[in-house]
């Protein structure tokens, strides 16, 4: 029982800075627990009813003392706030060159697919030293992607994308949990994150032959679901071209006004499932909804395909 490593591995770039804040809080908590705990015992023993101690003029109030014990927690609290806020922002914005991986959670497994096409279940292989950004969604209930060694956790919600990024710093195998209670077999919904040397990761990606990448599969689905009929060269239907759209502002007709939204994964997803909610200015709302017809995993592939068009320009 006592071989307990008090602490999970530190295996991501966030881990040590979060642990520093954690240890600071731990020090504050221990310090005050001990000080107050000793005070309770000392006061209780010293002023027990039988003891003969000087009780003349016991204090009943003191503005000065109240001020002190407001000021001390205030200062400590604000230090923690500033420290925590800086880290929190840091953990929110992924670097631009992050490796993109898609994650779909369902009762009770993780389906993970790399941009290059290789898919895996309950395992995530990533190269060490490389920032990784997960785009995640759930097929049913809420799950939560939790890797203690990376000190990261992000809820995975049905009907929307959440993202999470981290930069592994140490090769190894780390446990992956579902942290949000998700039903009967919640306790066995987990897996492993395998952090590999970059070369080994490259080999792993192409193991068993190089299949189509997510974008290539997406291109196939783009045809299969007849998206291409309108969104490529169509003579009969007027639909916005998708080349170069990803990541750019899109004009949206909003009654008489036009507003702009950024064409991110969430917008593209909504445009496929609820095409009438945000229609590009200058187009009729004629696209049918694909709600219930495309699985979450296919949706991510189609989005990967549209993303892959971002470098290209529409040929008119």
């Amino acid at each position, binding site marked *: 029982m006592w071989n307990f490593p008090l602490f999970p591995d530190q295996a991501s770039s966030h881990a040590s800075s979060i642990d520093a804040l954690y240890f600071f809080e731990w020090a504050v908590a221990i310090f005050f627990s001990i000080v107050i705990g000793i005070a309770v015992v000392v006061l209780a023993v010293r*002023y027990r009813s039988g003891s003969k101690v000087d009780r003349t003029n016991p204090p009943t109030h003191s503005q000065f003392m109240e001020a002190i014990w*407001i000021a001390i927690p205030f200062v400590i609290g604000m230090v923690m706030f500033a420290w925590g806020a800086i880290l929190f922002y840091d953990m929110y914005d992924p670097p631009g060159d992050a490796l993109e991986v898609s994650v779909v959670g369902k009762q009770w497994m993780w389906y993970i697919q790399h941009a290059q096409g290789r898919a895996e279940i309950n395992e995530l292989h990533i190269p060490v030293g490389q920032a990784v950004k997960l785009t995640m969604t759930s097929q049913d209930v809420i799950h939560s992607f939790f890797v203690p060694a990376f000190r990261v956790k992000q809820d995975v919600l049905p009907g929307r994308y959440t993202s999470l990024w981290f930069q592994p710093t140490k090769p190894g195998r780390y446990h992956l949990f579902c942290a949000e209670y998700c039903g009967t077999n919640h306790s066995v919904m987990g897996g492993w994150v395998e952090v590999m040397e970059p070369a080994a990761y490259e080999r792993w990606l192409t193991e068993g032959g190089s299949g189509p990448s997510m974008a290539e599969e997406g291109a196939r689905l783009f045809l299969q679901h007849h998206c291409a009929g309108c969104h490529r060269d169509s003579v009969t239907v007027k639909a916005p071209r998708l080349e170069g759209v990803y990541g750019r502002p899109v004009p949206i007709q909003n009654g008489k006004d036009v507003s702009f939204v950024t064409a991110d994964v969430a917008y593209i997803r909504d445009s496929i499932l609820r095409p009438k909610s945000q229609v590009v200015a200058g187009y009729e709302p004629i696209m049918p909804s694909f709600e219930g017809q495309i699985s979450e995993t296919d949706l991510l592939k189609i989005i990967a395909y549209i993303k892959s068009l971002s470098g290209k320009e529409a040929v008119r």
Partner: protein
Amino acid sequence: MHEPESHEGAPGVTAPGPESDPGHDHIHPAPGWFLTRYIFASDHKVIGIQFLFSGLIFFLVGGMLAMALRWQLAWPWKPMPILSRLLWAEPSLGYQMPPEFYNKLFTMHATIMIFFVIIPLLTGGFGNFLIPLMIGARDMAFPKLNMLSYWFMPPAMVLITYSFFVEGGSAEAGWTSYPPLAFARWATPGSLNGQTLWLLSLLFAGISSILGSINYITTIVMLRAPGMKLFRMPMTVWAMFITAILQAFALPVLTSALIMQTLDRVAGTNFFSPVGLTVANAPPVVGGGGPILYQHLFWFYSHPAVYVMILPAMGMVSDIIATFSRKPLFGYKPMVCAIAGIAGLGFIVWGHHMFQSGMNPALGATFMMSTMLIALPSAIKVFNWLGTMWGGRIQFTAAMLNAVGFVSMFIIGGLSGIFMAASPVDIHIHDTYFIVGHIHYVLFGGSTFAIFAAIHYWFPKIFGRMMNERLGMIHFFLTFIFFNGTFYLMHIVGMHGHPRRIADPTVYSYLQGAGVIGMNQFMTVNAFLLGFTQLIFVFNFLYSLAAGPKASENPWHANTLEWTTSSPPAHYNFERIPVVLHAPYEYSVPGVDEDFLPQTKPFPGGQRLEPAHS
């Protein structure tokens, strides 16, 4: 502290307070019929006792659920004494607890402890019994409404108990009941029928609390005895008052969330279901709602609910510590402001339960700031309790021991709360055993020790008999030891990454090698000892109820008004409405023969004592 009376006219019994109504001094006769006297009673004392008994009975139920939980965590899938033979003797189960049963256990343990034990005991039981007595009123402002507020509880209790026996069993979506798990009928067995009963049951319990809180607010504002100024009210009354305001504003939000979820389940609405959602191969729903919306609504109530469960405890502990330290409460007015501050901040911190839900960091940082600020009023409370003991003449009765236990455990529960305030750390420990440890330090180490303290302290007034002090002390020390043995290690396994709400921690090699199994077994042994220790309390309670020595009017030599009337008080509480002359904490006042000075007793020198302005 002693301000000479100079500008308010002559001191003495005749000086009426601002809200006195000397004409209103008539006494209603006590109802003679058994049914209206003890069952459908409108007497606040009887209603308080009804809440007390039903709360304590459910406390035993909730405790047994917890022991079954702990068994599974320490020895997963091993046959459990009694339950295995009763429930899982079928060959297909082989005496093993099924995982969905474990999920029901933690769901129902939390639901029962929060909604059927702590809130009803604190606000329903002690709030009802003490408020009119402590402010010098004959009853609540709306006695019939009070009766109704209790009688909304039995349907809730029946529904929650019945839900264990329907197809699919009781709810198992966690006490938080996040959709879609909670509303999708096939998501879990418990979502089949149990969840609907859970929702209805909580609606009843919530309405009971809303009715109660309206009554408390009105009573405290309108029915204070002559001379009972706001700043002469005991801390218990202040705490109940502010708690009632919290409930009155927060509960309607929970009620609406519960109704929306009920409609999602039974009427096909889509408040919380996203577009095209399909769970467990059920046909997709139309959708258009947001699961996160429910989390916001739920925590908008449930964070204040944590304060609903701790503020009355703080108030009662303040009174008990002052009484047994034979000293005025240190910094009375800052203590009142601190309670108000905690309540006010309590409304703007709910987002810290959702840092990992994908919240924008600007919003997250705001919640982080407001959560950090909770430390300030909490620090005032803790240091002022210490200040009260400082220079006192402390009598270690069972009630005082439990109150001091409350202070010590609340410190740990409070300090472990700062880990949740700082979002980067919270993201790591969210949904791990760290949270479980924290909440139990607040709700068991805090609220429950305060409930034990309050029962020992007010038992003579409620039932007219004394509890056994020696048994009370043994119960306290054993509870204190086993409580810490059960819950402290949770922080450590939590930090290590042990998720909460998992039926089997041993499936992960990560948790296997690391001593977690040993710690889980250690915690379980302590939890069982903690459970059995409560039998001492049960025995003491029942034995004292039947055969304890008769209590005098004021056995603890306390100052507040409930001790100026008989034990137990007559139906009408006070023969004459008392006139309050000074603040409630005038202990060991120089110039007074005894070391206490009841609020109704004039100070010999003709001074009127007010709490100090600090």
